[in-house]
């Protein structure tokens, strides 16, 4: 039976109609397992999301940025989960969330563009592979559909296998991050600066900022696309706004509230399929261990990643913790990566979809072929 539920033409005003809809493949699914990748574009601060409050150097490095950790959820003697991640904390308690700290892709510089290219392509360096590891994974799941919950297919999902993309026709407002950046750009412009100030005031009044509503809706939308026998098995959600160079406490809390709502909305929407689901949350790199002078953090190296879902063997934090003492930092400034993010991804996916770990590693990350992790990450 063909089901056209996933035939979704994004017909938003603008340029929608000039972009051909990707060809849709209808076939019997080969697996009941689901995999959703939520990418955090902009380098999310793992040291604030999963705070190493048990590390003696933490409070001193972070200063006021350590504030929110005081009200977070203590997961073990070392780590505290950010208080905005209330739903995720419940998943952790239900052993459906597993957090991995001090992770990094093979990329070691600090450009968002290049870092995301490596994270999504799965190559050993930037601009070396033209397709993404999620598309290569899809190639191992004949008949299964992939979907991007965004206006266009992101690099991670691009490749030989056709993939759908869907975004609501009334596209959301410009992201808060872009709004902030535009504000910076206009600040010194005599004409645009004041206009922008007025625009933001009006926007704030309308209550667009930090409501959490958008996140829940996005999660529910992803669930609609991925639930049931005909649902897509592989999906991707793009989130922006993690590049918190200033005003980090407030911005990050708002970002995490959205992310938490997205995951909760996805879980609720999936219903019974949640038990077959793996959600990966990851970013291109981490942020500096020390707070900067503008209430934020700058581009760093080691980050954290999350595995969530009914299929995850959760309730643990996996970290070969390098420590935050001055001598332990990477380049003297960043959290030193001790776990290979690619290895984590390859291992989790191999366990989730029942693929041979070494083969999966070579297929998804053909240039680095990371050695599979020893830990049991998934129940199945």
């Amino acid at each position: 039976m063909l089901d056209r539920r996933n035939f979704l033409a994004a017909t938003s005003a603008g340029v929608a109609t000039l972009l051909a809809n990707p060809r849709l493949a209808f076939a019997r699914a080969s697996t009941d397992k689901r995999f959703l990748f939520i990418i955090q574009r902009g380098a999310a601060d793992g040291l604030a999301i999963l705070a190493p409050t048990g590390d003696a150097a933490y409070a001193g490095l972070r200063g006021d940025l350590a504030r929110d950790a005081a009200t977070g959820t203590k997961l073990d003697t070392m780590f505290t989960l950010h208080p905005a991640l209330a739903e995720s904390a419940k998943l952790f308690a239900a052993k459906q969330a597993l957090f991995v700290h001090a992770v990094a892709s093979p990329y070691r510089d600090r450009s968002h563009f290049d870092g995301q290219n490596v994270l999504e392509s799965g190559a050993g360096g930037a601009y070396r592979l033209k397709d993404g590891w999620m598309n290569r994974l899809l190639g191992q799941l004949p008949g299964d559909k992939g979907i991007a919950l965004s206006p266009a297919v992101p690099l991670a999902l691009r490749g030989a296998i056709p993939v759908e993309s869907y975004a609501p026709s009334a596209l959301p407002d410009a992201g808060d991050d872009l709004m902030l950046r535009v504000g910076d750009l206009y600040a010194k412009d005599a004409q645009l600066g004041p206009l922008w100030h007025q625009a933001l005031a009006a926007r704030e009044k309308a209550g667009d900022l930090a409501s959490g509503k958008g996140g829940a809706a996005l999660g529910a939308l992803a669930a609609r696309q991925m639930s049931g026998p005909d649902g897509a098995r592989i999906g991707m959600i793009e989130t922006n706004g993690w590049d918190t160079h200033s005003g980090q406490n407030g911005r990050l809390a708002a970002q995490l509230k959205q992310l938490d709502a997205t995951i909760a909305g996805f879980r609720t929407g999936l219903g019974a399929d949640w038990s077959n689901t793996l959600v990966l949350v990851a970013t291109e790199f981490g942020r500096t261990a020390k707070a900067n002078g503008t209430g934020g953090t700058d581009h760093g190296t080691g980050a954290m990643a999350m595995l969530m879902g009914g299929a995850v063997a959760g309730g643990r934090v996996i970290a070969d913790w390098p420590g935050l003492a001055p001598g332990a930092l990477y380049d003297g400034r960043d959290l030193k990566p001790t776990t290979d993010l690619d290895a984590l991804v390859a291992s989790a996916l191999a366990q989730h979809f029942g693929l041979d770990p070494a083969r999966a590693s070579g297929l998804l990350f053909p240039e680095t072929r990371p050695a599979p992790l020893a830990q049991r990450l998934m129940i199945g």
Partner: protein
Amino acid sequence: MVSTNFAENRFGLGARADEPTASGDPRGWASEQLSRFEPHVAGIPDSRSVAIELADYFQQRAMTKRTAQAAAPAATMMTPASMPAKAPKTPEMMAARVAGREAYATLVGARINSALTTPTPFAERLTHFWANHFAVSAAKATTVGFAGLLEYEAIRPHLMGRFEDMLVAVEQHPAMLFYLDQATSVGPNSALAQRGRNKKGLNENLAREILELHTLGVRTGYAQADVTEFARALTGWTVAGISRGPASRFVTGEPGQFAFVDGLHEPGDRTIVGRRYRSGGEEQARAVLADLAVHPATARHIATKLARHFAADDPPPVMVARLEAAFLKSRGDLPTVYRALLASPEAWDPANVKFRNPWDWTVASLRAVGLKRIDGDATAALLTQLGQPVWRPDSPAGFDDIAAAWAGPDALVRRVEAAQRLALRAGQGLDARTVAPRILGASLTPATATAIARSESPATGLALMLVSPEFLRR
């Protein structure tokens, strides 16, 4: 000396990411386009087809009205209030309306796609300039299909010709004749009015706007008497194949073409703006247009608007004087005026900046991300969101050509939203760090370059480029 990239933005439609900057002399880049411009555009409807659809619509409307009136007495016997105020629309009427909207969307698509791929962007800019100078609005049922055609049938063919020829073609185009109500203007002493065949009277709308907007300019010394006399001279100017009512059988000609109906014309000699015009049918108003087209006030008016469009909101007086002189000396030879424009150092001064209006900004953005095709409906919707609906200005004065009209808080947010959408949908594989120097050239500021380089994703970088202060201006 500025670069060709500067010329692409100031005189053209913006640089394209997928095309290298043309080498050589920037002024030559613009001026050589004057001889290469291709006025003809294939694959669009014409006034004849739009007129036939519109005539069907009017016929249907008249028929439904008659049917409703015939049926009315029975219905009104009991409760007069229940009489329908308006006759219901028939499927045929709906279809005719849809046809007009389809013509509009097709023409919007043709306009944007020409703008994206044209080999002569300076000439396209001039086309857009003149279409706004001779503004008509697609908001009326009678003009929705015709409005865009004015640009293709009256402006483009004369873009590289004489102002007088463009003026006459515009005033005789069905879009203008309907928009400013000339098509139904009747001389009170015309033969048909005298015989009681046409109850409508004189309409001054077109006469006034020709003087105020198209030629001399507002407050240039003409009086109400000039407007009225000119309106009388214009009576009889109408459109063939669409007119309804008792006079329609006197209108001959191809549907949608200009027609002169002597029976509607107000006879008599008359004086307009200080000149005497002998009684002479169609030729009377035609002679008035010929004089207006080369009037010194017209030269100043056009020179001011061109300088405002290409150089600065407050046009430099020296430049206006230069264009005015070129216009007068050549008796309105448009390429001569364009060459004077290109020869004006004020237009090449990077200190003189213009805030791009939504149309210019959209075209420049689509070109910057390398798009070559976009659908007309999507374009129309986007421009409506951005506040400048294509061929639908609020008044015959057209869209304003100053920053104050476009640089507003809400307008900026809408551009940011549109830029983000565009960057996400169309910007795949583009790296703003390398695209921005190509698009913005010397105007790219270190602040913008840094902001792009620091943006958290390629799409954000591209969106930032599109809404950067230097991209919003040209």
